[in-house]
Structures are given as C-alpha cells and as structure tokens.
C-alpha cells in the first residue's frame, strides 16, 4: 500500500461564470491529520464536495486516487462505501430520534428485514465508547449539547468503517473544552488508523492538531506544509491564505464623512431557541454620515445575528443594549419600527429572506415602502407602476419589464432589486449583509457604485462581508468580530488583510476591544 491514502490531481470545477477550483493538488498521507485552510470562498468546501461525490465524477476535471485505486464516485453513497465520510458544519442529525437511531440512520441494524433494537443499542454503545460518549443510547439527540452531537456524528462515521474522515469546521460551534475533547478524539482515531481532513478557520487549533496543512486561495492549492518540519506559524499561514494584491475591482470614490449619527452600545443577543447561548456579546459600534463601515468576521462570528437583532429584533432572544440615531435612543420592537426609524437591512439570503421570487418586480420593489404609495390603506397602482419602473432604471435591473418575476433574474439583478426596495424606504442607515455574494464581477462593480451613491447622499452604510478584499476596497473603517465580540477596528489607512484576519480569528476575546487608529 502506498503512503498516500488520497491523491487529488488537477481538480478543476466550474460553475456557470465562476471557476471555483482550478487545478488543485492535494495529497493526504495515511494515518495523519491533514488540515485545509483558506479564506471564505477559497474553495475548501467545494473541494471536499468533489471528494465525497456530492459533485459526481464527470462534473469536474482531474483525477482522484483513493486507497490505491482511482475513485469515480457518482454520489455520497459511493464515497461512503469506499470509506470516505464527511461531517458538515451543520450537523445532519434528527433531533427527535435517539443517539442510537441517529448513528444507524440509513444503515439500520436489521435481522431478516426487521430492525433489531438489541443489536442497534449494543452496537451504539460500543461506538459511543470509542468516541468517549457515556450517555444512554436512547437519549434524544436534541437533549444533548452540540459538542456531544458532534461526537454522535463521528460515531456514525465510525459505524460505516470510515477510512478517511472529513470534518468541516467541527469546532465552530463548540466551546473550548468541547473543542479540546474533539481534537483529542481525532488524535486517538489517528492512532487507530483513521485519516482525517479538517477544515478550520481557527489557525491555533489547526497548528496544534494537524500533521500537514494545505493552503487554498482563490480555488488554487498554494502550498502544503509540514507542521513539524517546516516551522509553520500563524503569520506564515495567514500570508499564504491572503497573499494577493487588490486589483482595480472598486470604483474610485472620495469619501465625504460627516459626524457619527448611528450608535449601537453594549449589544448582547442570545440564541432564539437555546436561550442560554450568547451569540453577540456586548458589541458596540458606530457609523458616521457618508461613511461605509465594514464588519468582518468568519462565518458564525455573529455578524448577521447582530444586524438582524438591531433591525427590529428580527433575530434572537433576550436582547439588551441601546441603539441611537442622531443621539436619540430608538425603541425598535419590530421591523416596522426599524423601518420607521430609518433603518434598512438587506439580507445575505436573497432567495429566502430578501425577495418574493414568485412575484414580479413591482411587488418586490414596493413591499417595504407600500405605505408611502397608499392612501388610507388603498394602494395607488399608478404610483406603484411609476415607482417600480423608475427603480428598475435607476438600479439598472436587467429585466425586460417590471412584470418580470424576481425568480427569473440573475443573482446580480436580484440584489439590485433588494437594494432598490430598501432605498425606496429612504433609510438613514443601510445594513448590507454580503451585498455581493454570488454575483459576478461586473454586477459587483455596479453594486459598489450604488453604495457610493448612497453615502454621497449623506446616508450611512454598515457592510457585512466575508470577502476581505471587498471590505478593504470599499470601507472607510472596518470592525472585526469574533465569537460574538467586536475584537477591534481599523481605519482605511491601517487596514490589511493580515491584521483583519488576526482580529477575526482571536479565539478568546476576553482582552476586550483593541484599537488601532
């Protein structure tokens, strides 16, 4: 048997208009823990989907050799049969079923076609012992914590005779103790001959647990480093992850920054269901008129949750803190309050939260501002038509007419509708959550120009983005968020990807806010 359990050669994966992976090389040694790092959107998840058969053999270019044989997985069933098991960041467990049932879901322990509960429970206990889980196998999965749920996933993987275990951000939702336990388990599995690939943003833990690290950037494999031999440090990794120049992707803009008019102080938000979980922890920030303020952070840092909870408490529970506009405290009990006060929130999830895909442009453009187009509750259809047509033109939505259904448009045009509908409410502060996600370069440029136009009118923009170059190119000031804390802010002159990445990956934010002006 060869030393490498996995070799991926020249993997190239295209989506319409986007080259997601370009000639990626990845070799994983048998019996090691291999880490995959890179910025959001670097292609890590796509690469793992290629490996696990989510994208069928033939949907991509390149070769995969697994366990000494060429692998041509048509679906996840094939890859699991070969011994590749992937555990996603969002766990695929059924909360209403027991631990034992979840472990054998889709792989039920049967005797002559009938489920044998004795065998199910006995096998479950054996697997649970292997991952250090001491609960009753009949316990419902929703009753145990996320850390233990993660262990159930691993037990489930072990039940399938896993040879290569892939974990996508396994510790993102875990506290320090649970994370440490999980990493110990990975080390223990390594002793037992299981090879693991771990995707993580937490560079500290990557360095602690991994034998080798492969860095991806813009869909290309940059380098593979030995943690022991190469003397790798966090700085070294960050450099490899972000190492590129800002191109001319951003329209020129002369900021005219006024005085601070929007302030959030000491904002704390809890999870809507798991009410003890603190998602945003004492966050404070402010925005000045004419200013574009960025909010950086890795996924799960609490940025969207922060924005939505400020926007009329549309997310979270047990919210505390103050919001001030022009020095006056706002009581925002619901979304209509927030709109009334002059806030707007353009969501990161256009399709589910931003638009009515089955409705035409007119309905979508005018929904939040319908009150302005009606008298005593009766809508003035002529005004609706006129306003929609004006917005369609102003925002350059490429649709044949305002009767076009939003669902039939491209992502970029959909995003322009979302912006249009919020601009029509004449907000003072616009919160733009991932405003260019899933949009091609040309449309991005147009969106940037629209944002500039807004701040030139004296409005404030708070922009959440996972693409650091975008934040650096657009923002006058950038806050970084990590694990619910604002971990620092940098202004335009001092902002670098390395500095932001450092603030975004601060694992304990107990040190309070760092300032660098």
């Amino acid at each position: 048997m060869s030393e490498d359990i996995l070799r991926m050669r020249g993997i190239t994966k295209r989506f319409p208009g986007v080259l997601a992976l370009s000639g990626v090389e990845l070799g994983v040694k048998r019996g090691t823990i291999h880490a995959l790092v890179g910025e959001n959107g670097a292609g890590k998840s796509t690469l793992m989907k290629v490996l696990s058969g989510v994208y069928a053999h033939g949907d991509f270019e390149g070769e995969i050799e697994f366990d000494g044989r060429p692998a041509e997985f048509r679906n996840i069933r094939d890859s699991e049969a070969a011994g590749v098991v992937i555990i996603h960041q969002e766990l695929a467990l059924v909360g209403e079923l027991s631990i034992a049932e979840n472990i054998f879901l889709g792989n039920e322990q049967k005797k002559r076609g009938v489920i044998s509960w004795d065998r199910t429970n006995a096998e479950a206990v054996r697997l649970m012992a292997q991952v250090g889980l001491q609960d009753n196998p009949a316990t419902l999965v929703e009753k145990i914590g996320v850390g233990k749920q993660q262990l159930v996933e691993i037990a489930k993987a072990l039940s399938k005779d896993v040879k290569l275990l892939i974990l996508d951000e396994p510790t993102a939702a875990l506290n320090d103790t649970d994370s440490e336990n999980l990493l110990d388990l990975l080390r223990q599995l390594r002793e037992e001959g299981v090879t693991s690939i771990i995707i993580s943003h937490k560079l500290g833990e990557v360095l602690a647990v991994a034998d080798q690290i492969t860095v991806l950037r813009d869909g290309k494999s940059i380098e593979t480093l030995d943690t022991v031999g190469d003397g790798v440090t966090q700085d070294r990794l960050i450099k490899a992850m972000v190492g590129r120049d800002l191109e001319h992707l951003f329209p020129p803009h002369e900021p005219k920054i006024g005085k601070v008019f929007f302030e959030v102080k000491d904002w704390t938000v809890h999870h809507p269901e798991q009410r003890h979980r603190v998602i945003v922890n004492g966050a404070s920030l402010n925005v000045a008129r004419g200013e574009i303020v960025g909010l950086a952070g890795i996924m799960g840092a609490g940025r969207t949750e922060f924005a939505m909870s400020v926007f009329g408490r549309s997310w979270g529970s047990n919210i505390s803190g103050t919001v001030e506009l022009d020095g006056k405290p706002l009581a925002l009990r619901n979304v209509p309050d927030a709109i009334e006060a002059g806030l707007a929130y353009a969501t990161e999830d256009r399709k589910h939260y931003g638009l009515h895909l089955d409705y035409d442009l007119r309905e979508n453009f005018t929904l939040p501002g319908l009150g302005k187009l009606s008298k005593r509750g009766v809508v003035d259809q002529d005004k609706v038509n006129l306003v929609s047509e004006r917005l369609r033109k102003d925002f350059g939505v490429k649709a044949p007419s305002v009767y076009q259904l939003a669902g039939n448009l491209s992502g970029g045009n959909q995003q322009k509708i979302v912006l249009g509908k919020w601009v029509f409410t004449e907000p003072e502060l616009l919160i733009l959550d991932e405003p260019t996600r899933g949009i091609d370069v040309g449309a991005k440029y147009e969106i940037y120009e629209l944002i500039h136009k807004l701040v030139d009118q004296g409005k404030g923009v708070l922009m959440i983005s996972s693409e650091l170059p975008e934040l650096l190119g657009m923002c006058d000031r950038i806050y970084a968020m990590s694990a619910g804390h604002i971990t620092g802010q940098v202004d335009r002159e001092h902002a670098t990807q390395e500095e932001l990445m450092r603030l975004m990956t601060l694992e304990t934010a107990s040190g309070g806010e760092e300032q660098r002006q």
Partner: protein
Amino acid sequence: MSTVQNKPRPSLLDALRNINLRAYGMIIALVLIMILFQVLDVALQNQNFITAQNLTNAILQNSYILILAIGMMLVIVNGHIDLSVGSVLAFCGAVSAIALSHWDLPWYLAVLVAVGLGALIGVWQGFWIAYVRIPAFIVTLAGMLIFRGLTLKVLDAETIGTSGTFNSLASGYDVLGADLRLPTLVLGILGAALFVFFQVRGRARQAKAGIVGSSQAAWLVKTVLVAAVIVVAAYTFYSYKGLPIIGWILLALVMLFTFIANRTVFGRHIYAGGGNEKAALLSGVKTKQTTFWVFVIMGALSGLAGVIVTARLHSATPGAGEALELSAIASSFIGGASVTGGVGTIIGAVIGGLVMGIMNQGMTVLGIATDTVQVVLGLVVLAAVLFDVWNKKRSTGGGNVPLVGITPGGSGEAKRAATPDSGKEPEKASTS
C-alpha cells in the same frame, strides 16, 4: 424575393399564446365544460344545457360555496387552511334562525347577528393561529368539532324553520315587489362599459409609465371577450327572471374582495406573508396581524354563508353545511390557489366553485349517479393542482429541484447561488 424576411407581425395566435395560462385557463375550462355538457345533453337527451334557468340554478345552488370560497382563497393565499367553515356556517345559521324565530328580530338584525358571531369565531381562531402560532390545521380542526357541537346544543337536535324576507335572500328575484330583470340588463351593459373604460385607462397609464405589459392584440382580445361575456350573461339572466338577490350579493362580495386583495395594503400583505413569510417579516409586514384579520374575515363570511344556507332550506338544521369546507377548499385549488400559499385570486376561487357546481349539475342532468359524480370531481381537483405544478415547472424552466439543500455550509456555496443545482444528489445529502 429577398424581402420575405420582414419583421414578423404579431399574429392573433401569438396573442393567444401570450395570454397568461394561469389567469385565464380556468375561465376557458369553465366555458369548455359548459359546451361539453351542451353537446352531450343535445346528443343524449335532446335538450339544451346552456339555458337561463340552468345558469340561474347554478348560482342559487352554489351561492354559499362561492361565499366560503372567497374567504378560503384569502386563507390559502396567506398560507393557511380553514377546516371549520362548515361547522361555523351551521352554528351561525342556527343562531340566525333562533334570532329570527325565537327572539323575533327583524331579518336584517338576524343577518347581522350571524355575521357578527362568525367574525367573533374568527377572532377566536385567528388569535390561536396568528399569535400563539398553533397551526391553522389544528385550530380549525378543533373548531370543526367545537362549532358542530355548539350547533347541536343551540338547536337541541331540532330543526328551526324560517320565513319571510329572510328566505328570499337565498332564492328571491325581487326587491319590495319590483323584479330585477331590467336592473340586471342595465348592470350588465354598465358593467361592460365600465370594464372597457378601466381597461383603456389602465393601458393608457401603463403606456405613460412606459411599462406596457402584454401585447396590443392580446389585450384587445381579452378586453373584448370579457366585455362580451358580461353582456351575454346579463342578457341571459334578463331573459329568465333577472339576476337573483344572492347573485347581487355575490357580485358585490367579489368586487369588494378583489379590490381588497389587489388594491389595499392589507390585501398585498396577505399575499406577501403567504408567498414568503420570512421576507415579508423582514420587509416590515405585520404578518401576525394580517393572518388574524384574514381569519376574522373568513369567520364573517362563514356567518353570511350560514344565513344563505338557512334561508335556502327555510330552516336551520344540525347537519347543515357538512363537508362544505372541503368544497370551499377544492374551489380555491381548482381556481388556481397554490398549495404553498402566496398565489391565487378571488375571481379564481369563484370560477373554481362554478367549475365544480356546473360539473355537478351537468352530470346530474345527464342522470349520472352521485357516486360517479364524486369520483369525477375528485379527479378534477387533482388535475387542477397537477396543472398548477406543471405550470410552475414550465415557468421556472423545469429541472429537478433537489428535495434537500445539497450540503450546508461553505461560503463557496454562495458563488453559485444564482445557478440551479444539478439535482443529482439530493437523497443522500441529509443522511451522510
């Protein structure tokens, strides 16, 4: 002959093709069904089906279903369901009969009592559904039992007769002794003229805004056809006994609720909340409040339907309105409501109710047994929703929509947000 390749002029055929299938499919289906029965009746029984009397009967026999269907359409568009309307109808009908016969209230107060009681029941159910967020299916299933039981209780398992003006609400043809033939004809002609006027004005305004929707030919065909249908229908009723009183009531309800649905903020919020509740909520729609009022409206309309059923039977009976909720729901779906909410029109619900009513009537006239009629009506409901599903697939470009989002997580996911998923790998994604 090099000049052959002129710019093709839009033909009538193109115009017809451009007509929105969804909006007009059911009207066309209704007309085709009527023609089919006409042909069958002439061939098999040597009589006409499309007669003034038969049309009038279709209205009279289905009036209360149509009233329920109007409310049910709003409920379904808002993303809910109401299983209690049959029982609410019976309860309100019973109370109106009691008000009339036992309390000796004048007929209009008896009507008011029934409608008010229906609205109150709507308040009760709307509260649990909208604010406590118990699924409408459960709340109204409970309501179905509760209000049937209350009906039995207030009637004491007896039948209470009604008489006088009250009864003419459901089957009368004259007001204060004057018949309604001439007003029917005047209404038809005025209605057609007003329709044409609004169409022309609307089109002119669209042109001014620079957003003309359909082609000139399609618009012309539609306008002329609808105007003609209005005039012909008016004349047909005129030639018999005129539009019955309940016909006028229905007409008023259709116009009122079409206006509410299309032209009021409340109406648009009903649609927005049903089409995508999360997006509506984030756009500042008070979705709970909207849902609450939708159920109040549904309750009031059930109360009114209760009056009509009682008046039509000349009595309130414990078993009134059984299974009518299913007819109302079926009418909405035949009339183009989407199972997932957000789509449907008031006029569609009425057409859907008429499709069911006319088919029922047509088959009965042909001497087809009720058991067969039920089977056929069931298949019609299935076919209508099938058409809806097919139409939706067609308009979204088809393709397999994965049942489960392929794999969660990974920001690279976003890069292809605008591309349809291949749908090759849906079934294992959630169990991996």
